[in-house]
């Protein structure tokens, strides 16, 4: 018996619906159909009047969730693809994110963003939006990389009083399996050392954690011990765990699947340079997707995002400094 990443997301939502009257699900095609990725399969039947199909109105979906949260509910909104959340940008960053600061009334909504690339998905079904949302004050941005994190971080995210952008990776949905949903269940805001090492630190999150581990496996054959840090939550950012790792290794590579201008990897490099410059034995490096829209053809797509090969190459450069 194994559990997939998408199973974990479905299980978490089922548990939330069962145990918390304030929770309801809202999104396109999520009721009887069970969602484009089946993250809500069977939940509408199991929980009548708790799972609702939304019109194709991303802006209004988030506006509606904000209103429901003001009145004491804890909506979970599914964006069909993270890319479409650009249509809800205003309600997310101006309404939900500013609300607690302005009024003192928290907005506990969770917005699930099926994120990241899969072969053949092209420019509008592949984006990674975490850096954009993390830029705005008032949002918590989560990027689970494991089955257990997908489950526990969704539960914990819904329990937070703040708006949560929950970036779940589409490539991991069915590819990533675990024996059980249980794990170390770290609190939100704490990073994890996925693989310990002493020669260099790779800071990654979401699907890139797995690519970084593959790269580390390859370099291990040459005797390099690479430490992989899984951010889990990009905002808040666990700088303590990152700095502690860099203190051990003296070398830092930040890897992300998002576009290269700014974003999470740039933030990690900037913070470590500011607060841990003395710990660095080499210029910190970053590796992101290329600065083009996400291409459609699998051959182009595979070369657009960081891969174990490109991570290895970046690490070798870092290690040779």
């Amino acid at each position: 018996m194994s559990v997939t990443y998408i199973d974990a997301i479905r299980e978490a939502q089922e548990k939330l619906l069962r145990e918390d009257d304030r929770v309801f699900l809202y999104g396109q095609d999520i009721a009887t159909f069970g969602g484009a990725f089946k993250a809500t399969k069977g939940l509408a039947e199991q929980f009548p009047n708790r799972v609702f199909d939304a019109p194709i109105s991303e802006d209004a979906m988030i506006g509606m969730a904000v209103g429901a949260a003001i009145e004491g509910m804890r909506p979970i909104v599914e964006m069909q693809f993270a890319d479409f959340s650009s249509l809800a940008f205003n309600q997310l960053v101006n309404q939900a994110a500013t609300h607690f600061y302005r009024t003192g009334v928290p907005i506990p909504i969770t917005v699930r963003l099926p994120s990241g690339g899969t072969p053949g998905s092209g420019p509008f079904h592949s984006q990674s939006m975490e850096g954009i949302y993390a830029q705005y004050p008032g949002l918590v941005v989560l990027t689970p990389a494991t089955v257990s994190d997908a489950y526990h971080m969704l539960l914990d995210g819904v329990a937070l009083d703040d708006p949560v952008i929950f970036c779940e990776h589409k490539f991991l949905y069915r590819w990533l399996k675990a024996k059980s949903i249980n794990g170390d269940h770290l609190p939100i805001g704490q990073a994890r050392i996925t693989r310990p090492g002493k020669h260099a630190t790779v800071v990654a999150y979401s699907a890139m954690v797995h690519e970084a581990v593959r790269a580390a496996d390859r370099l291990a054959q040459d005797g390099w011990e690479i430490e992989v840090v899984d951010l889990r939550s990009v905002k808040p950012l666990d700088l303590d765990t990152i700095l502690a790792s860099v203190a051990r290794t003296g070398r830092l590579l930040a890897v992300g699947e998002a576009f290269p201008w700014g974003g999470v990897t740039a933030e990690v490099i900037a913070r470590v340079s500011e607060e841990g410059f003395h710990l660095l034995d080499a210029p910190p490096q970053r590796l992101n997707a290329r600065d083009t829209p996400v291409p459609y053809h699998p051959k182009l797509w595979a070369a657009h995002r960081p891969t174990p090969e490109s991570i290895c190459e970046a690490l070798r450069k870092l290690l040779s400094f």
Partner: protein
Amino acid sequence: MKPYSDGTVMNRDFLRSAFRSMLLARILENKLSSLYKAGKIVGGVYLGRGQEAVSACLGTSLIQGTDFFAPLIRDQAGRTAFGEPLIDCTRTYLGSVEGPMRGRDGNIHRGRPSMGMPAMISHLGAQVPVVAGMLFAKRLQGTLAGRVGATCIGDGATSTGAFHEGLNLAAIEGLPLVIVIGNNQFAYSTPNHRQFACKDLVEKAKGYGVGGFSVDGTDLLACASVIGEAVKRAREGGGPQMVVARLLRLSGHGEHDDGSYVPSEIRNGHYGRDCIEVAMRQLVENQLATVDEIFAWQDEFGDDVQRAVAQAQQEAVPDPYQEDWTALATRFPIPQPIFP
């Protein structure tokens, strides 16, 4: 009780109450304008002059503690009618830390969301789905019956995606949402013909499958009748209702704007008349209030406004060294997972 032209009975208490809110709003806003010109206001000043009848009739039709009201930029009268304390306004405009926004947001952006009055953001139409969501929550909680949610927007906001998406969503769900569109003919400086191509905005109601009403927004009696009816229909389960009120704002977009783009034939036309003067005549002619009463109210409200301004002016402004400078309700780091 005299009947309206449409046969419904004129409600003396409603009209007197709505008029009092109109009058208080006008006196308050005149004061805000003076304070702005004297450089005493932090940020801009946006007035509802000429739109008081519409706003007050909506606010007076709503029940605080039961209903929701998402006011917009020109709704001082509606806020007052709904029960917003006067001091909330002066504190917010004058930057007092005691106000509902504590200096973190200003002027017409104030609200008390936990008391049914959300705080508007500047992006127009954005409050429409928020009110729908508040109503949706009440449906899930089983307490929607007899409740209404209302919001005001202008002619310009009807061009936004947020308006379209929000109203369509409310219509799908059959929520008791009342949208009052104050068509004051100019969105900032942009005239109607650069904003929409239909003959009358109320035609849009049919497309959304919601109730549609038109009213002369300068006429208190008409506003009371039409807006009251729209709210009643929503309250009784008739689904969303749209009211389009024709009027003209009798000031600039904000006090920084002289409104010189409004042609004189419009300014001097029917909708250029002052709804407060019209309402005074209507109240007196229909023996709903006497001239002496109205003058007494004027004095009373003048004193109220002076007191609210004086109090807010004496209060502390926010101290950057006392701010916690966090936008999150959660205090990170959290020691252990929240969910058991």
